[in-house]
C-alpha cells in the first residue's frame, strides 16, 4: 500500500478544443487534508471529477487509493465524494435516499449509517423531508452526509461550504477536522482560502488548468522562509536587520510592516527572536509578529 492516497501523472483533460486541465502532476499523502485552490475555470472541479472517476483523463494517468478510479467498482467503500452541482434525485425522502445509498455501498447497517451521517451535519430534521423540498443549504448538507457514510478512508469534497450560512459552514469545518483526527484523507476544493488555510496540511494551486504550485501549507505560505513584524512606533534600521545572521532580505511593506526573509533550513523562531530583540533594543514598539504570508496573499501573488 502506497503512502499516497492520490497520485496524478501528467493528467490532461480536454472538452473539444477547450483544455480544462493541462499536464497536472501532484500527489496527496494518506491521512492529510489537501486543498485544491484556484479561481473559477482553473480546473479544480475537473481535476476533482477525474479523481472520483466521473471524468476520464484525455492524457496521463491517475491512481486513487492505489487503483485507477475508472476501474468499475474499484473505489467502492473506499471513497466518499461530495460533487459540486450534483442535484439530489427528486422523489425521495432524505433518510430513505441516504439509507438506499448506504445499502448500495454495502454498509452493514445502512439506516444507522444514514442517521449518523445526517446527525453529523446537523440535519436529522430532514429525515422525512422530500429531497426536492430541501433548501440549498440543507441539500448541500445532505449531500455532504452521503459522503461521510461508512467513514471511507478517502473523502473528496468539492466546495463543501459554498452557499452555507456561517454557522453551518463552521459546523462543516468541524466535521472535516474530525475526519483529519480520524486519519481519513480529505481533499477539499474551495474558493475560501481562509478556510483552506485553517483546514489543510497541503494544497495545490491551479490556474488556467495548469499546476501553479503545490506543497505543504507551510511551504506555500512561506512560513519557514519569511516573517512580518507589525510596527506600532519607532524607526526600523533596515540595513542592520538585513545584515543579521541568517537574514537574506529585510524591507518595509508600507509604513508599518517589516518583512524579513530568512535562509532555508534555519529555525525561524531563532531569527524571529533575534530580530524582535534588536527592534526592542532600539526602542521600536511592536504590535505583532506573523510567519509567512496569508494563503490568500500567496495565491494572489501567484495568479
Amino acid at each position, binding site marked *: 500500500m502506497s503512502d499516497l492516497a492520490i497520485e496524478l501523472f501528467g493528467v490532461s483533460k480536454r472538452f473539444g478544443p477547450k483544455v480544462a486541465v493541462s499536464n497536472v502532476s501532484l500527489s496527496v499523502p494518506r491521512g492529510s487534508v489537501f486543498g485544491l485552490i484556484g479561481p473559477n475555470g482553473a480546473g479544480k472541479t475537473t481535476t476533482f*471529477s477525474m479523481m472520483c472517476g466521473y471524468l476520464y483523463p484525455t492524457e496521463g494517468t491517475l491512481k486513487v487509493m492505489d487503483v485507477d478510479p475508472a476501474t468499475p467498482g474499484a473505489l467502492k467503500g473506499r471513497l466518499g*465524494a461530495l460533487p459540486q452541482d*450534483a442535484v439530489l434525485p427528486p422523489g425521495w425522502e432524505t433518510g430513505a435516499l441516504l439509507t438506499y445509498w448506504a445499502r448500495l455501498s454495502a454498509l452493514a447497517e445502512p439506516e444507522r449509517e444514514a442517521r449518523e451521517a445526517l446527525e453529523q451535519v446537523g440535519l436529522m430534521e430532514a429525515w422525512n423531508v422530500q429531497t426536492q423540498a430541501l433548501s440549498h443549504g440543507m441539500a448541500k448538507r445532505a449531500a455532504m452526509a452521503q459522503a461521510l457514510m461508512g467513514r471511507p478512508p478517502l473523502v473528496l469534497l468539492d466546495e463543501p461550504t459554498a452557499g452555507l450560512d456561517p454557522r453551518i459552514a463552521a459546523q462543516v469545518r468541524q466535521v472535516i477536522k474530525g475526519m483529519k483526527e480520524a486519519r481519513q484523507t480529505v481533499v477539499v476544493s474551495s474558493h475560501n482560502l481562509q478556510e483552506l488555510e485553517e483546514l489543510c496540511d497541503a494544497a495545490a494551486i491551479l490556474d488556467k488548468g495548469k499546476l501553479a504550485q503545490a506543497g505543504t501549507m507551510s511551504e506555500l505560505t512561506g512560513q519557514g522562509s519569511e516573517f512580518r513584524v507589525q510596527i506600532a512606533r519607532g524607526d526600523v534600521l533596515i540595513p542592520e536587520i538585513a545584515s543579521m545572521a541568517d537574514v537574506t532580505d529585510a524591507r518595509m511593506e508600507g509604513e508599518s510592516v517589516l518583512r524579513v526573509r530568512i535562509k532555508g533550513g534555519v529555525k525561524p523562531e531563532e531569527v524571529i527572536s533575534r530580530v524582535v530583540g534588536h527592534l526592542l533594543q532600539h526602542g521600536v514598539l511592536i504590535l505583532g509578529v506573523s510567519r509567512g504570508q496569508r494563503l490568500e496573499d500567496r495565491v494572489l501573488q501567484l495568479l
Partner: protein
Amino acid sequence: MRNSARFPHTLDGLKETLVIWSAELRRAVRSGRAVVLLGLYSMFSALVLLVVGWLAGQVREAVNKQLETAGAGADASAQVGEEMRKGVLGFLLSDDSAMMEALSRVPLEVLVVFKITLFFLPAYVALMGFDQLSGEVGPRSMRYLTVRARRSSVLLGKFLSQATLLLGLVLIIDMAIFVYARIANPGFGFADVVINLIKFWLAAIVFSLAYVSLTTLCSSLFRSPAVSLVFNFILLFVFWLMDTIGRAAQTAYSAYQVVDAYAVGEPSMMPFLRFLRYLSPSYYAGNLLHPKLAEFAASGAAYAGFAMVFLLGAYAVLRARDL
C-alpha cells in the same frame, strides 16, 4: 485463479443491481407518473375495447337484419357471424391456420385490443422510461451512484425496474381486458381465460422488453431527458417505417416473381428494401401468439436479440461517457 477473483466481483455487481432495482421500483411505484401512465393506458385500452365492441355489435345487428329480410334462420345468422369472425381473424393473424385455430376461442375484441395496444406499447414504454438515465446524467445525480456502484449495475438495475413496472402494468390491463371479455362472452370459459391471459401477457413481455432496452439506449445517449424522448419517438417511427416499407417491397417482389414469366419487368422498388423489415422489432410481433414453439421461439429470440443489442449499446455509451 482469474475466475475465482472475478466471482466476488460479479456477485458484488449482482447485489448492486438488486439494490438499485428494488429502490428504483419502489420509487417508481410511489411516483405519480406510474399512476398517470396506468390511467392513460387503461383509458386507451378501454376506449379501444368500447369502439371495437360497438363496431362488432353494429355489424352483427346489420347482418342479422339483412338475413331476417332475406328470410334466413338463426343457423344462417350464426354461420355468417362465424364467417365474419374468421375473416377478421385471418386479417389479424395473416391467415395462419395454426394460429387461427389456437386463438379460435378468444373473443375477437380481445385480439383487436391486444393488437392495437401492442402497436402503441413502445410509445408507452418510451414515456415511462425516457429519463431513467438522462434524468440522472443531466443533473449529475448519477455521480452519487457511480461512487458506490458500477455503471453496468446502475444501467441494469434501472432497466430491470422499468421492465418490472411495465410487466405489472401490462398484467393489470390484460387482466381487466380478459375479465371484461369473460363477462361479455359467457362462452369464454375460465380455463381459456387463464391460459390465454398468461399467453397474451407473456407475448407482451417478450415484445416490450426489447422496447424497454431501446428506451434505455435512447436515455443513455443524451443528457437531456426531452431530447432522449424525442429521439426515442424518432427511432420508433423509423422502425415502423422500415417494417412498412419492407413489407410493401416484399409484396411487390412476390408479385413480380409470380408475373415474371410474362416479363412485365422488375418492380420499381429496389429489391433489397424488402429486407428492411428484418431490422425492425415490430416485424417479429406476428408470431408471439403462435401455438408452435419453434415459431414463438424464433420471434422470442429476435426480441431477445434486439434487447441485447440495445442494452449492450447503452452500456457502451454509459461506460465511455463522462458523467
